[in-house]
């Protein structure tokens, strides 16, 4: 084993109790990301990808129970006292969220919100200095006229600009890890590309570890180094991005890839995976994906699939075709 990665999650489980019954939303995910690396997490809405990452940082809803391990720079986050977690959040680990419209406080100026992040973690910094730094950060994410913009309120910014503000706020304290939860989902396609460029640019400049949570595998194609595919609270496949696109081993991944719109091909209809993900607490036996799987056999109905590994490529499917001996 080499040095411990920047951030690693081992067998993380998150469950909710409702009406005396317990539901597992995240069913033991394991992943890791290092400095300067981009890990994409892809999955449908409700697959547990967001709540899993939030829970690793202690931001889970009050009703959730979290077990397993999430280690950051050698420190265990699960079970860490709140006060200690707070010193990490916003400073060493930053997050940005899906909807830049509602993620910013509507009654505080953008500058004040960025300055707050700075001053929360740097006791000695004056308000003035924090505001100056906020303006610098706005120019870092390519917002024009930052000195004027810091005194404006979120509603005076466009969606893309607000997401840039969120990014500026996230990197204010020069974090090691940035978790971006669907950062481009609420934005126009052209703006999506710009935001992705800002993120990948910052990743290089600040040597950030970046976790990119999305439901759109297409977004990851050009930007992620590795991809973890989540289905019903489990990682069903994990691989380097090129490997994943060239040799997807899990039927779910193949379905996701097939449903990415392709400009080159003229197709009448986009491919879609039949059915819907199982509701929480009503997981089918065996492989959770089997009711929707085109290749499902008898064994899939009653036996959970083993995890097949080929170097850095893993897949949880009875019929995963992972050629042994290829370069990982």
């Amino acid at each position, binding site marked *: 084993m080499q040095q411990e990665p920047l951030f690693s999650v081992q067998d993380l489980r998150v469950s909710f109790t409702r009406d005396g019954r317990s539901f597992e939303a995240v069913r033991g995910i394991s992943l890791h990301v290092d400095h300067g690396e981009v890990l994409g997490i892809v999955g449908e809405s409700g697959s547990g990808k967001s709540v899993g990452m939030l829970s690793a940082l202690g931001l889970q809803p009050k009703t959730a129970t979290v077990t397993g391990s999430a280690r950051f720079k050698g420190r265990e986050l699960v079970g860490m006292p709140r006060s200690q977690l*707070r010193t990490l959040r916003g400073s060493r680990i930053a997050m940005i969220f899906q909807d830049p419209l509602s993620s910013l*406080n509507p009654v505080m100026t953008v500058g004040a919100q960025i300055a707050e992040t700075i001053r929360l973690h740097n006791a000695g910094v004056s308000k003035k200095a924090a505001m100056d730094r906020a303006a610098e950060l706005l120019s870092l994410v390519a917002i024009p006229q930052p000195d004027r913009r810091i005194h404006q309120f979120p509603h005076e910014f466009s969606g893309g600009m607000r997401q840039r503000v969120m990014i500026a706020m996230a990197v204010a304290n020069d974090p090691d890890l940035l978790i971006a939860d669907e950062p481009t989902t609420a934005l126009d396609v052209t703006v999506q590309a710009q935001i992705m460029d800002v993120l990948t640019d910052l990743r290089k400049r600040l040597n950030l570890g970046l976790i990119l949570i999305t439901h759109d595998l297409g977004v990851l194609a050009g930007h992620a180094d590795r991809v973890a595919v989540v289905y019903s609270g489990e990682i069903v496949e994990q691989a380097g991005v090129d490997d994943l696109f060239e040799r997807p081993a899990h039927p779910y991944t193949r379905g996701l890839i097939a449903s990415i719109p392709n400009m080159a091909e003229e197709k009448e209809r986009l491919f879609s995976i039949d059915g819907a993900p199982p509701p929480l607490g009503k997981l089918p036996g065996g492989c959770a994906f089997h009711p929707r799987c085109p290749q499902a056999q008898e064994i899939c109905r009653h036996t959970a699939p083993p995890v097949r590994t080929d170097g850095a490529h893993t897949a949880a499917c009875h019929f995963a075709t992972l050629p042994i001996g290829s370069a990982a």
Partner: protein
Amino acid sequence: MTRYILRRLIAMPFLVLGIVTLAFLLTTVTKGDPLTAIVSDRQMNDPVAVAAAKARWGLDRSLPERYVIYVGNLLTGDMGTSFITRRPVAQDVFFRLPATMELVLAAMVIGSTIGITLGVLAAYFRNTVIDHAARFFALFGSSIPVFWLGLALLYVFSVKWGVLPGPGRLDPRAAPPTSVTGFMTIDSLLAGNIRLFLDALWHLILPAFVLGWAVAGTISRLVRANMLEVLDREFILTARAKGAGEFRVVVRHALRNTLVPTLTVIGYSFAYLLTGAVLTETIFSWPGMGSYAVEAARGLDFPAIIGVTIVGGVVFLLTNLLTDIAYVIANPRVRLG
């Protein structure tokens, strides 16, 4: 915003004129004959005395004439003479308005502080003992009649335990300070008399609390509902993800976003209590606007009734304007125009 405020201020005299007209006309449609308030029963049979009284109070003139004279006098600050006190209404009102102001301001400070605090706690600890206790407190405050609450608290704190003084604005043996603002607390401070100030403050506590409790009830329910909504918003998650502590998350991020509806209720309650605190004023022998209004109404004291209506209307208008301005400060998305 300055233009907006100017426009509102320019419109105000017209609104006041509307109030004056309405108040004036309403007194003429009432069945009551003001003469009964002026002339004693025995003299009613004496046509000479009645005619003299009519002439003295201008009741022999036509309605339009009286209206024009009244408005003309009003412009010079003359609101006529009270039938009952035989003093200028303006003088009466401006003696009583500060008394009510002092009481209601204190009540609003108490009510808003308790109401907002309870509302925030109830929302943050929803469905816990704290939430239920806050709900009980709110319900109790807004459903118990003030005359009962006032008497009960007076009995317990003043009569039984003697920790708080009885009714009145000051100790009956104390000489009031020279009136500058009409606020006992401020005037006694201006006079440099700390003991008098403490006495005035001491007398203020119980009536202000009685009035404030009802207000606290309304405010706490409203704040709770709004807080529940805001606490679910995504920027609260952002604030936590920034590393903000819970107190900061709740007060700086959530509470600030609930201020607009809260300000509405605070402004409205304030304006309402200025003339609506009759029962409290009566129980605590507080020489305020509410009791003056009731005495005037009971005695068919038309000049006083109109005077109170006008002053109440103006206070309402000003409070509304202040509330609107406060909106802008509380929520930058509100544009006045």
